[in-house]
């Protein structure tokens, strides 16, 4: 690596050649205000807030998009730069509705924060706010272009990070709008509902559909038994909304909080994650030993399944038929648990708390999502929505006592909890598949080869005589590289390059899902991932097949993995979908 030496406000700093001035400033401990910049995407250089001066140059540069020059000395703040930045904010505010109090991003908005930081008390420009209609066509995501500041983050995320191409800069200049092609509503576009646009939007222009009122109505209805299950990543995300620090593990407090909200029973999606491993792992072993279609692709991420059905329909035979944990928890709740508890499933309202916006779409994706005879999951809310419900009720998660999950569909193994981070499903599957293939338990269950934040990871795992070749992808934009390898081998009649591929749509996995508290950043993803591995480590049972509640449900109800009953309740089918409706 070649190194460049520069000075930031007189502070000498050494950075990799090609680094931006912004990166050099960060390395020097100097914060430059930014708005459109985000570390997950290439700079759009659209807002003009991060302007700096280079000594000896008459030009003002944008720090995010200007590479450092050897020996250069940069000034990040002087009266002229300060005034220019302030003017930029004032100009943006002049075209932005002052609806802060009723905005979903109130107190959590990057523009609002800048206005506060710069102490802007009045806007010297005439207000020029264009009121545009909302796009509420999607079950997951709402576009509110009136609030758009045209930073372009959503478009870059949708196209580059995710490879979806649902959103584009349509029109130009003042009249441009971030929207699908052909003026189509979002729901008719290639959108896979991953919500990464919402997770990266600095303001309230893109956000999740709020279903909290439906949950409140169910809880307030005495005729309903309202049960809830929480996804792995929720437990390491929600604490951030209550000042508990990045990635704080909140399992026991979360259970208590959910009971205080009024849920009748508190279950855990991690139980169903263990169930998913039993089914999906058995399916993999069956494919391996019966000459089935390989590689097997994971199917627990609804944004990924939607993407595959649109962009890679030739991979449908490779897809695991196992439903996602949420959609296994649903039918089990309304059959197995309802029978055990003696409750009419028609009166059960099953709520899932997910780090994900695509889950709102998944619960109604087809008739297989009503395998119990009822809608298996009635309402899916995101981590952010649950945090708002807590706050509205005055529940401070950070001070709650811990409590236990309800039986018999709440107990989980360490393998179930790591479903939330990239590599976690693979590791959980390896722990159980090893046992299924060799009849022996994997020694020291940590599978380091499949851990880490990289967008693409590959590994070969020895299981008896078998060299299990695996690939792990996070961030849909990375899928192409791996699937093209598979396609190429197939076209050439060669052995598939992998046996098993895990895909999670969001960078780093569900911990960074579109419905998690706003925090997309490398350190935050690392902290949440560490939280899940800590939850795994502290678990007495680390493998799905060892979970006593899993053994029990197979003994008492399902029979065996891939049994007729399991197939009926826990498996589904995939179909090609048009990219555009």
């Amino acid at each position, binding site marked *: 690596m070649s190194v460049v030496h520069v000075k930031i406000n007189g502070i000498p700093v050494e950075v990799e050649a090609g680094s931006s001035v912004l990166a050099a400033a960060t390395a020097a401990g100097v914060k430059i205000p930014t708005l459109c910049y985000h570390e997950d995407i290439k700079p759009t250089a659209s807002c003009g807030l991060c302007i700096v001066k280079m000594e000896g140059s008459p030009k003002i540069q944008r720090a995010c998009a200007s590479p450092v020059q050897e020996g250069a000395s940069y000034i990040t703040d002087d009266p002229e730069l300060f005034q220019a930045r302030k003017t930029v904010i004032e100009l943006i505010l002049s075209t932005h509705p002052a609806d802060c109090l009723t905005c979903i991003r109130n107190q959590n908005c990057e523009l609002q924060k800048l206005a506060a930081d710069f102490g802007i008390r009045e806007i010297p420009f005439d207000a020029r706010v264009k009121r545009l209609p909302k796009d509420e066509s999607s079950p997951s995501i709402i576009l509110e272009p009136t609030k758009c500041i045209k930073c372009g983050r959503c478009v870059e995320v949708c*196209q580059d990070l995710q490879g979806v*191409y649902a*959103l*584009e800069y*349509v*029109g*130009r200049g003042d009249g441009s709008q971030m929207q*699908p092609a*052909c003026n189509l509503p979002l729901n008719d576009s290639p959108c896979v509902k991953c919500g990464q646009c919402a997770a990266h939007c600095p303001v309230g222009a893109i956000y999740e559909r709020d279903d909290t009122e439906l949950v409140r109505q169910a809880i307030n209805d005495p005729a309903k038994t309202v049960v809830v299950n929480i996804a792995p990543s929720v437990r390491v995300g929600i604490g951030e909304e209550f000042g508990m620090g990045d990635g704080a593990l909140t399992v026991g407090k979360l259970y208590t909080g959910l009971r205080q909200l009024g849920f009748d029973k508190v279950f855990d999606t991690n139980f169903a994650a263990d169930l998913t491993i039993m089914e999906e792992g058995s399916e993999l072993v069956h494919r391996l030993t019966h000459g089935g279609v390989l590689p097997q692709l994971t199917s627990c991420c609804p944004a990924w399944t939607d993407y595959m059905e649109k962009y890679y329909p030739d991979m449908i035979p490779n897809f695991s038929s196992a439903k996602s944990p949420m959609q296994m928890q649903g039918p089990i709740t309304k059959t197995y648990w309802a029978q055990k508890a003696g409750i009419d499933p028609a009166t059960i309202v099953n709520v899932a708390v997910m780090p994900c916006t695509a889950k709102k779409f998944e619960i109604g994706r087809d008739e297989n999502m009503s395998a119990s005879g009822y809608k298996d999951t009635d309402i899916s809310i995101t981590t952010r929505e649950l945090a708002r419900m807590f706050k509205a009720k005055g529940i401070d998660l950070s001070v709650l006592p811990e409590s236990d999950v309800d039986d018999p569909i709440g107990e989980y193994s360490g393998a179930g909890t790591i479903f939330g981070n990239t590599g976690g499903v693979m590791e959980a599957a390896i722990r159980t598949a090893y046992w299924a293939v060799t009849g022996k338990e994997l020694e020291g269950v940590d599978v380091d080869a499949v851990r880490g934040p990289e967008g693409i990871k590959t590994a070969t795992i020895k299981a008896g005589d078998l060299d299990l070749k695996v690939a792990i992808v996070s961030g849909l934009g990375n899928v192409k590289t791996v699937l093209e390898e598979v396609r190429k081998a197939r076209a050439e009649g060669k052995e598939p390059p992998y046996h098993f591929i895990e895909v999670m749509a969001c960078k780093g996995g569900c911990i960074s899902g579109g419905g998690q508290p706003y925090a997309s950043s490398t350190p935050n993803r690392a902290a949440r991932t560490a939280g899940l591995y800590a939850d795994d480590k502290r678990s007495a049972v680390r493998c799905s097949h060892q979970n006593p509640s899993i053994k029990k449900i197979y003994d008492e109800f399902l029979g065996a993995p891939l049994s007729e009953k399991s197939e009926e309740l826990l498996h589904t089918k995939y179909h090609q979908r048009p990219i*555009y409706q």
Partner: protein
Amino acid sequence: MSEREELKFSDSLMAFINEWKEKPGNLIMVLHKVQGEVGYISREAAEKVSQLLDIPLAKVWGVVTFYHFFKLTKPGEHNIAVCLGTACYLKGGDKVVEAINKELGIDVGQVTEDGKFSLEAVRCVGCCGLAPVMTISGEVFGKLTKEAVPGILAKFA
């Protein structure tokens, strides 16, 4: 998509697209040719270009809506182009637009219900000495007044 009638490009247009298929910067070239042949860039035309060049439809649409040159609606049988360049504007080009608006009930960028006329604003037709100027189906009309507009339109009705 399958229910809609498939748009056919001419052999010469297809040959042009194939020639440009692998070249960088081909999208704008191809869209120019497509508009030349079809008259505008419909959703169907944009989809076909997207497929032929293997460029996501969103990117095609981004380019089409960025450049004013590309039209998204089918032009009328007679396209009226009113010049709003500096000379014509100063000489009352906007009054000409108003007169057409009054006469035909369409604004810039619109087409009459019967598909007879469409109206666009252009930035110069190269005869500033005749300002204000408009062209209808390529025929130039200069030194316009708002009173003259109905008579000229009547010739094309």
